[in-house]
């Protein structure tokens, strides 16, 4: 039994890292602009399809798709920003409808270009088993867990130490006060969308390398990212990591100790429980003050 639980914890941690990587971009934009980008999953998916293109058409490792994905996904992210910025009234609510629509357009564009077939890497290197004692994983899972951890640490450093990072936090905290301090909120918001695009690019290539992709997959990614963002608390980057790990471990333990059919249910129950007990999330503003 202990071997089962140890493997479940390990799988949960790796899965949690993947979830956190997907959620980071959404959490950043949510924290900065109070905009829930419901097209975030489709942006991640777009990067995943870039990886598919690079592997299937050029015969290169999916990792070589990262520069291409960065250009395409960041451009799309900036376009989403410009469309959102056109909203003059009730931006928080109307942006939900707008980004949901953008998500549908992107899903159908992916369907038209790459068809509805299931895609995944054919590289054996990514799928080879890495066995350390009682722990089993694919090489790609381990690799992208490390990448996710580095990106999260980098993002945390950027937000807390760099000028632009501080500007993002200032705009997030009080847009008008930030303006008075000489910060251009528009530029700051574009920067946060671009950073979200960078994170989505890495997440997409990661998903293609250890999972499978399909055009309709983007919406599920957005939902997962949203759950983690709410679990974490608005604007909390360490919270996203903790939220992702918590969800990943809870799901893996549910499969091991109960039934795999309950995995998604447990995730949603955890989400509702945290919302009920800690409405600001695990690391939300009030919790931090407390």
């Amino acid at each position, binding site marked *: 039994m202990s071997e089962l639980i140890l493997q479940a914890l390990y799988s949960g941690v790796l899965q949690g890292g993947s979830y956190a990587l997907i959620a980071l971009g959404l959490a950043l934009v949510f924290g900065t602009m109070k905009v829930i980008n419901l097209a975030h999953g489709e942006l991640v998916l777009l990067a995943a399809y870039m990886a598919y293109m690079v592997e299937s058409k050029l015969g290169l490792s999916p990792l070589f798709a990262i520069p291409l994905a960065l250009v395409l996904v960041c451009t799309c992210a900036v376009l989403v920003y410009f469309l959102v910025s056109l909203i003059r009234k009730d931006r928080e609510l109307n942006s939900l409808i707008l980004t949901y629509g953008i998500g549908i357009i992107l899903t159908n564009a992916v369907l038209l270009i790459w068809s509805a077939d299931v895609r995944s890497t054919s590289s*054996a290197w990514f799928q080879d*088993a890495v066995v350390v004692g009682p722990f*089993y994983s694919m090489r790609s899972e381990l690799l992208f867990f490390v990448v996710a951890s580095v990106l999260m640490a980098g993002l945390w450093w950027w937000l807390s130490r760099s000028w632009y990072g501080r500007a993002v936090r200032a705009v997030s905290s009080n847009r008008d006060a930030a303006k008075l301090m000489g910060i251009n909120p528009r530029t700051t918001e574009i920067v946060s969308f671009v950073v979200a695009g960078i994170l989505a690019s890495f997440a997409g290539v990661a998903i293609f390398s250890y999972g499978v992709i399909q055009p309709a997959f983007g919406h599920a990614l957005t939902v997962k990212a949203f759950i983690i963002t709410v679990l974490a608390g608005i604007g909390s980057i360490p919270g996203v990591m903790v939220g992702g790990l918590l969800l990943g471990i809870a799901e893996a333990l549910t499969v091991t100790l109960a039934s*795999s*059919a309950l995995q998604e249910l447990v995730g949603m129950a955890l989400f509702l429980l945290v919302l009920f007990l800690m409405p600001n999330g695990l690391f939300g503003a009030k919790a931090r003050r407390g």
Partner: protein
Amino acid sequence: MDWNCIIRSKLKLAALALSLTAGVASAEELLVGAEIPLTGSLARVGSGMNEGISVAVEVFNKTNGKHTIKVITADDESAPAKAIAAVEKLAGQGVVAITGGYGSNNIGPASDAANKLGLPYITSGGVDDSLTERGIKTFFRINNTAGYRKAMVGLLADMKVKSASVIYSTKEATADLAKDVQKELTATGMTVGMHAFDPAITDFKPIINKIRLQDKSEVILMAGYENDYVGILRAAKVLKPDVKAMIGVWSLATPKMVADFPDLMPSVYGTALLPFPAEFKSADGKLFADAYKKLYNKEPDYLGQFGYVQSMILFEAIARAADKGTLKKGGVAEELAKTDRETLIGRVRFNDKGDNINFVHRMGQHQNGKIAIVWPSDAATGKMNFPGVPW
């Protein structure tokens, strides 16, 4: 020339003109609706079925000589409400019957709507027993859970294994099949471990680990879809459970899986109508294969074959009803009910609930980049590689 002669020749001319006019009238273009998921979660399978329907139109129009069929396609977006709307839209456009449908949860309400509109509905995309238990006289289905169950259980009987673990998606069709298989295997004295999974799952390692450490079964049965199989087989390749075979159902023993996931497929079993590369021996099969390759420039897969068979059966029934003048009087459903013919999927004959009573699937195995039919023995094109797993 006397008057009688003139009248006789004019009557002959008039009769000839009438017969020509009648000929033209009977060779009308008949409209058929195709309600299919072309977007949404079922887009992949819907597109596959749509290819088969298009091939059926091509072959029917080329070979019938009297009637031509025109198909109007409506995307049901993989959603039940949209499926009903698609059927109603097609009815408004004057179709005489519906072919298509995927997913029992979409087919149920869509075929109900078709029945209320008096339109026959034929499908191969839903195997849930409740679809035929409704007793709708306009509903027809060429495949069913029983056919898949017989194939899986038959293969296991040939393997002479004593224990199996079933990993199945909680979707209706896969869950029903898994439970049916469990019931039948348990009745034969086998030990069966059941592992349901949510369709949203991406990491199957915890499930495979349970099978490896707790179940310790001889074989793993998988009831899911392409993305699930890839996840399960990858997890199994990492954890390497001590099993003798990995056996799935639909969407697994296909040319697409051979091409896209060659490292995951060796020795894996799945339901398959034909070996790969496909060998079409019948005249109908050759017509289908030629038209499919002409239209899509690729090897036909099982979705295309099912879509083709269901549509050809429907088109032929429509043609017979048109000849009898019963097209608008329920004649299509009556003609469908009388169907009894050899097809690419075997003999098709419907019972009074509209189910194909003859449907039994075959089991194929991935062997050296090809697919060999290994069950039943009378249809086998290769010997079973057992025990054998991809790792």
